[in-house]
């Protein structure tokens, strides 16, 4: 059984008009790569250390190292000065939990109604769904596969408990973690 951990990160919530080419260009110049405009996908910079997840037609979540957040927020604000946009540092609001392999998949199947095989089995795809009774942003970052769960901080303790119990159950152990 893998050891489950909650990791903090850097997150920026961005809202703006995706139909506005100039908005997209300004964001690209600020973060170094383009925002995804296809539903349920994410884009990343070359090193893969920064990502932008599609959350809605006018909303994205940019993830990065925590130390980078204020400079990226600054660059976005400067770049989007002429645009109606909402840039919010939401780093404190999310924690990341990783699941991997067949065990990870089996765990997810016990909590989400999403068809993982067709929704997020390919790298670059993400989905907002529920896992057990918590809202999550789920993505598959490589083909091993490794699944990333981004969950609101206040739900993370509940979710961790659910994940641990489910993994215990999968391992045929008694519940209670």
């Amino acid at each position, binding site marked *: 059984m893998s050891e489950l951990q909650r990791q*903090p990160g850097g997150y920026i*919530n961005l*809202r*703006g008009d995706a139909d506005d080419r100039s908005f997209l260009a300004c964001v690209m110049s600020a973060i170094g790569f383009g925002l995804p405009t296809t539903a349920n996908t994410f884009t990343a910079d070359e090193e893969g250390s920064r990502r932008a997840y599609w959350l809605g037609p*006018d909303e994205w979540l940019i993830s990065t190292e*925590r130390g980078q957040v204020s400079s990226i927020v600054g660059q976005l604000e400067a770049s989007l000065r002429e645009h*109606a*946009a*909402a840039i*919010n*540092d*939401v*780093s*404190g*609001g*999310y924690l990341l939990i990783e699941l991997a392999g067949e065990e990870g998949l089996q765990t997810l*199947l*016990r*909590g*989400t*109604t*999403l*068809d993982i*095989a*067709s929704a997020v089995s390919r790298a670059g795809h993400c989905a907002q769904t529920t896992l*057990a*009774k*918590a809202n999550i942003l789920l993505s598959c970052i490589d083909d091993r596969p490794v699944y990333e769960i981004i969950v*609101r*901080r*206040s*739900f993370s*303790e*509940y*979710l961790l*408990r*659910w994940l641990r*119990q*489910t993994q215990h*159950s*999968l391992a*045929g*152990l*008694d*519940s209670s973690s």
Partner: protein
Amino acid sequence: MQAFRLDDGGRIDRSKPLTFRYNGRKFVGFAGDTLASALLANGVSIVGRSFKLRRPRGIVGCGPEEPNAIMQVGTGASTEPNVRATQVELYDGLVARSTKGWPGVRFDVGAVNNLFSRLFAAGFYYKTFMRPRALWNWYEKFIRLSAGFGRAPKESDPETYEHVNAHCDVLVAGAGPAGIMAALAAGKAGTRVIVADEQNEFGGRLLAAPATSGECEWLQRAVAELESLPNVSMLPRSTVFGYYDHNFVTVLERCNDHLALDDRKGPRQRVWRIRARKVVLAQGAFERPLVFCNNDRPGVMQASAVSTYIHRFAVCPGRRAVVFTNNDSAYRTAQDLASAGAEVTLVDSRVSPPPDRRERLENAGITVIPGHVVVNVDGVRRVRRVRIGRWNGDLTAPVKPAISVDCDLLAMSGGWSPAVHLHSQAGGRNTWDDDRLCFVPAEPGQANRSAGSCNGQWSLRRCLEEGRDAGMAAAEDCGRQPVNIDIPDLDDGDSHAIEALWRVPAATDADRCPKQFVDFQNDTAVSDIRLAVREGYRNVEHVKRYTALGFGTDQGKLGNINGMAILAECLDQTIPATGTTTFRPAYTPVTFGALAGSNVGPLFDPVRTTALHEWHQAKGAPFEVVGQWHRPWYFPKAGEDLHAAVNRECLAVRSSVGVMDASTLGKIDVRGPDAVEFLERIYTHNIGKMEIGRCAYGVMLGEDGMLMDDGVMARLGEQRFYLTTTTGGAANVLSWLELWLQTEWPELEVYLTSLTDHFSTIAVAGPNSRRVLEKIGCSIALDKASFPFMHMREAELAGMPVQLFRVSFSGELAFEINIDSELALAMWQTVMDAGEEYGITPYGTETMHVLRAEKGFVIIGQDTDGSVTPVDAGMNWLLSKDKDFLGKRSLSRPDCLRDDRKQLVGLTSVDGASVIPEGAQLVNDPSAPKPVPMCGHVSSSYYSACLNKPIALALIEGGRARKGETLYAVVRDGSTIEAEIVSPVFYDPKGERQHV
């Protein structure tokens, strides 16, 4: 001593004997047995007492339709009631009890009911126990005691359960010949297939074929081939029990129930929640009983079940058998019985049964009596003899018994009813087939197909063909190239002719003859259906409820079609005109544990925690559940109870400084060129006039003008605002705002972002709060002039970036610190350290409530209930006259303008000591004639330590005009507390303390 076990054959493992206890006695069966087959092998003929009449009953079937062998399996907390012995796989150490019969099944005191069976007709309870009305409570105790099957354990369930979600192209329900062919066809075409079957082995009816037959050989090959397909998931011991909209199908998998207790690990049962693109239904069919006098005696069984027990379990349930049929299928049972060494007589209602069939039986030494029917059965604890008479097809002419045959087994076959349950649950209708005498599926209600005997196909070859065709069609629908597969040459040579025989008339008046049972589990007989019709019931659903036909664990799988045919006869109409009752989930009983899955105990509902939760836990704070949040309720010191702790916490805030975790407040960032216009429409006060850096208390109303939520907002920029909402209302408010933006006002360019989880909020309140922050080291000046009340500033506190708000929910000088949740614990600790010299006191929600009540601040949802306007709550000052806002027009409705609406006021107990219970109703005159008119209720009530008296907030009709009057709060024990109506602001009415 397994006296009825055959020497060889069967799918049992004679090298693995299993010991089990039934009604306290020890028995031995074999691996591969069901509890039912093991009981039959051991010659146990009585397995229960009937529901109402307490007649001894034996095993009738071999599947979910079994009406009598209803067991309590297991002991202690894990015991499960209502289990069909026919569906319980035997394991070593199994403990089972009959659920009916007291003191035991062989002798039951209640059997006296049978002597008075005419009294216990349909509607007996309604008619007998209705009067006198007052005695019902007394009757009920005894009726409840004798009702039901088994007992639910009182202990909590130690087992675990889980849910699994799955998606597939093709779901196949049932793995008999049709289901296996469908799964093979769909699987070979490359679709994602799930095939589920309720039994431990795939094969369905083929499991009852002789071991050396071609059927068994094919089955083995076909299952091996299915196993070799990686895209096919096979779920044995898995019942498809529900078919819902959009091809959402639920399956109950019994993971552990077949294992010895020591071998069990992991979840006991699993509910599969499957979304399938296409569904193939191949559930098979149920054999119908025949309806004649005393047809419920132990030893009267379904013919197909007898065959199954012989071939699958190597148990021959009798030595001298009579087979009674109206169709061809039971001829095979007669042969099976003969091959197992039984002496067999076959009684066929048809005058001319197929000659080749008859000849085959007679060559095997079986007596065939055509044109006759079984009229009655002798024997109470077990069939001893059957009475047979000539049948001329006339239901109005009683059949006189002419021949008697001694026997210990009566195998009956009244034809077959397709299991149309899932097809019907999916919204499909059924049509009556006059040749096959059964309901067959008509157009499917969803993307599903029925195949095999659940589609009314009886011949093995047709079942295989239909299964293959359904699998190929489903694969094609999923965009796959269908792959043809050969149909094995397994024609069973059976013809399937049938003649209608819904009941055997034993007397001119069916009410005078011995009981002719239609539904064994509910003791519903022909006479009950006739009575229901005589009393005016016409609709099949009404007759069901009056007679209990089709209730219970089998839900009419055995007796319903017979019952409907008899009802049709009574109503002188056709069977299709009579129709069926509704087929609803669950197909077979499902445990509550399985339905709950892992959502029990601490996982029942999400627990939301703040970034400071562990600190609160370490301090021993009990938690109050607010929405899904767990908030610290109070922080008791050693020996303190709630009241002592709250009094101490309140006084600390009023006299020095307290600190509270307010992180659960909803927080929303609002931005965009139209932010002001948007918020003007949402909130009741003027937004545009707010200066940057200014805070304001605001309320939002529903369209009905009622208070919906409240909170402090701040203007952070020309086009940027920060809103707070109540803890419980956060998600709803965000949805509400998005709803208006997206659907009604899309022209407004405004963006909303939830910051609830990002920011933790630390409220530092009390006269020394400024000193604490100054001591920590703040990047901005905190004095009154530089940072006045109701303003916000961005600053650094102890080097950490924060938003500071000079707002107060306590009425004291106070600051709220918004900080990145990742840094919240560090900040909290910094505040605690700096405050130590001032005796800084952490406080919880209870103290927060007392402090705000002393100031008359309402809590939405506690002091309001969706019927309180801002005017009722005394917030007229918040209602802008210069603009429109949501709910404004509703405030001028005549009802909102009444003088006698309930209005928010304060209350103090006249005795100065009694704390009025929250929720107490208020009356002007407790001695008024009942019902005493109520004039309001108490919404909040506390003991105020700083005022040294109880205080309360109440909603009272026309209350504001009644200040100084007294009235009475009615306590649950009937006593009253006299209270005076006062202003709701008890403390610092001028608000000077928060402005310092």
